[in-house]
């Protein structure tokens, strides 16, 4: 109740210039009270809600508001307050003094909860990053992480994981990611000891991001395979994990697993996370090309992604046609995009797929074609195209990509006739797998049915039952009469 009184009195003395900030300040104070109740009741849900509400306020944060909030939450002159206020820029001394004067006179001295302190750290950090003051953000985040090491409360975990994220972000934006790798590993160890699952998840993702930033796929995979796995607590962290997993699998040439992970990540990601979904889609497209399948046009036409995916669209076109020259020109044209996406090495691997597709087209269209012509059509620009073409065709036949034989003496390739597929068991097998899938889906849906919990309580009283039976009898008689009348 005292808080309400304070909130009403504070807006009155403030100047007109700060008229917008009171509402933000009020929001922040509401969030602070939410955190307090959550901490006292040990309910993590409230803290999660508090964090969500903060994210909504992100744009409206200003230095004055933050100072005022700091004065409210932490008693000014106390050590945490000084530490935090040091990070904020000293704008507009007058406003601050005015606010401090009023709030000091009215707010009682309180012991700041650790949760509140960490929350203040979080606010200041978000503000600094949004203002692009990265080196200060770095200092602030290091201080907060040092503070966190001493705290061991479950209610702080949610705020802590957010802090770790911004800690890593501030270092990444200044290009110093390698420095904090040791710290992140130590924090992950601590989180595991304390059974802080959300923290573990966040830190694992941050570590993977750290390794992948420097292309250390080997170490990333070693960490990922040894780290404890459990049910995902946060959808966003799960999406990130799937994305990093997909990337690692792609580099290790396990394309099927990679495709699954990347597509899942792209699907689960929230619609607002456009940049993330674009990245997922880029990698997913390349993995599908490497697997030999061509992604449909609708993938490239998703809302907001057309421009970003344009280079990949042209690349897919080149692979689909099977034209090496076109492929080379597209790769050169967009080489800067590809290097910034770090997909350059994967594109180089695609060359092999281009040749295969071209070869498949040729083998389907011609029943017999000389190897020199094959080399010309594939536009193999090497020293000895005919011999190259011969070996390439031989390997393709061995891998089962095309159905043909080579006649070495005459130097041509003879395609085999593809038999009538309906006379084999193939359609039956395909149908069977689809039927099984539909039936499984049906069974799962039935099992997932939920009935409203009180439906079985309504029992018919004897009266109602008699009434119902009477009605049924009348109806039956009626129908019987109607039948007779029909004649």
């Amino acid at each position, binding site marked *: 109740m005292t808080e309400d009184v304070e909130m009403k009195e504070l807006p009155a003395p403030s100047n007109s210039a700060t008229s917008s900030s009171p509402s933000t300040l009020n929001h922040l104070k509401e969030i602070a009270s939410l955190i307090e109740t959550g901490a006292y009741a040990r309910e993590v849900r409230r803290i999660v809600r508090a964090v969500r509400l903060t994210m909504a306020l992100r744009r409206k944060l200003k230095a004055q508001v933050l100072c005022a909030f700091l004065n409210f939450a932490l008693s000014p002159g106390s050590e945490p307050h000084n530490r935090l206020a040091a990070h904020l820029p000293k704008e507009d001394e007058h406003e601050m003094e005015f606010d401090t004067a009023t709030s000091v006179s009215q707010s009682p001295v309180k012991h700041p909860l650790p949760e509140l302190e960490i929350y203040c750290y979080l606010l200041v950090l978000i503000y600094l990053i949004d203002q692009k003051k990265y080196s200060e953000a770095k200092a602030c985040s290091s201080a907060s992480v040092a503070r966190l090491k001493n705290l061991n409360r479950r209610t702080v975990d949610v705020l802590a994981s957010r802090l770790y994220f911004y800690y890593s972000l501030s270092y990444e934006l200044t290009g110093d990611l390698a420095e904090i790798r040791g710290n992140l590993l130590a924090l992950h160890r601590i989180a595991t000891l304390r059974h802080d699952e959300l923290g573990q998840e966040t830190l694992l993702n941050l570590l993977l991001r750290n390794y992948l930033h420097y292309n250390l796929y080997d170490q990333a995979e070693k960490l990922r395979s040894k780290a404890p796995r459990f049910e995902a607590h946060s959808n966003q962290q799960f999406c990130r994990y799937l994305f990093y997993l997909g990337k690692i699998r792609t580099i290790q040439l396990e394309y099927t697993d990679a495709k699954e992970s990347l597509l899942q990540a792209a699907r689960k990601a929230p619609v607002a996370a456009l940049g993330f979904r674009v990245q997922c889609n880029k990698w997913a497209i390349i993995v599908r090309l490497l697997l030999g399948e061509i992604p449909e046009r609708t993938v490239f036409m998703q809302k907001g992604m057309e421009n970003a995916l344009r280079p990949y669209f042209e690349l897919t076109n080149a692979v689909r046609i099977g034209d090496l020259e076109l492929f080379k020109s597209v790769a050169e044209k967009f080489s800067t995009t590809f290097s910034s996406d770090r997909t350059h090495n994967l594109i180089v691997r695609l060359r092999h797929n281009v040749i295969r597709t071209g070869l498949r087209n040729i083998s389907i269209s011609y029943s017999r074609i000389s190897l020199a012509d094959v080399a010309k059509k594939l536009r193999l620009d090497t020293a000895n195209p005919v011999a190259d073409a011969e070996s390439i065709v031989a390997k393709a036949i061995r891998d089962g990509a095309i159905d043909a034989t080579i006649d070495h003496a005459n130097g041509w390739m003879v395609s085999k006739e593809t038999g009538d597929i309906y006379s084999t068991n193939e359609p039956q097998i395909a149908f069977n797998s689809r039927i099984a899938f539909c039936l499984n889906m*049906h069974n799962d849906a039935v099992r997932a049915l939920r009935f409203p919990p009180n439906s079985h309580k309504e029992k018919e009283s004897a009266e109602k039952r008699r009434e119902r039976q009477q009605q049924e009898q009348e109806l039956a008689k009626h129908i019987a009469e109607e039948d007779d009348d029909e004649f």
Partner: protein
Amino acid sequence: MDPQLTEVSQLFERFKAACVREDVDTGSNLLSKLKVMLTGFRSLPPLFEDTPNAIHELTLARDIYEHAVLLSVKIGDQDAFERDFFQLKPYYTDASGRLPPSSQEYMILGLNLLRLLVQNRIAEFHTELELLSPTALENPCIKHAVELEQSFMEGAYNRVLSAKQTVPYKTYDYFMDLLAKTVRDEIAGCSEKAYDYLSISDARQTLLFSSDDELLQYINEEHPEWEIKNGVVIFQKAKESAPCKEIPSLQLINQTLSYARELERIV
């Protein structure tokens, strides 16, 4: 530290001389002694302490390991190569900021890539490739390995074998020989499926043997199912056409019964 350093340097000189002389036994003995002495230095990985002689010690240790790698190639010991290379790697990655670049760095990196290719560890090959900067990729040693891998994947094996002539360094020969053997097996496998028959001279050419006898010996050892008739190698015996394919009746019955059961469940 200084007397230790001078001792190591002297031993290192003797080791280098032994390698040049192609005296592998002395070389190996000296190498083991050198490795033991290197553990005395505190500035090396994993400690990376900052002693006054740090740069000197790091450079010395790096040179020692580079020579160890080259020695293992001479002996033909791939495990020793792997061990020494892993010990050498931190010098290239973590200490690269403090030391002047080594002249043999790219050659050894290229050798490692080639080794992974020969051992068919393609996933690790690509992982290593990711770690290289774009400038490294322009280097002829590395480019050679990358193009080799591409030709191998595409199946243009003749390019692989002709690349043997264009090795940048003589030390690559060992791995190229191993690669040639792998390639030959691959070509044999492909030819089996792709050709119905090949004349002896053509077979000899594609499999890159220098004489017919070698070819016949190879066929007898590796592929006894190939027939040799009238100067022609026949790869697949004519298969008798399967008269009537069996209908997998049991499987079909099971499937249909499961459909019936599931459909009954639908209320």
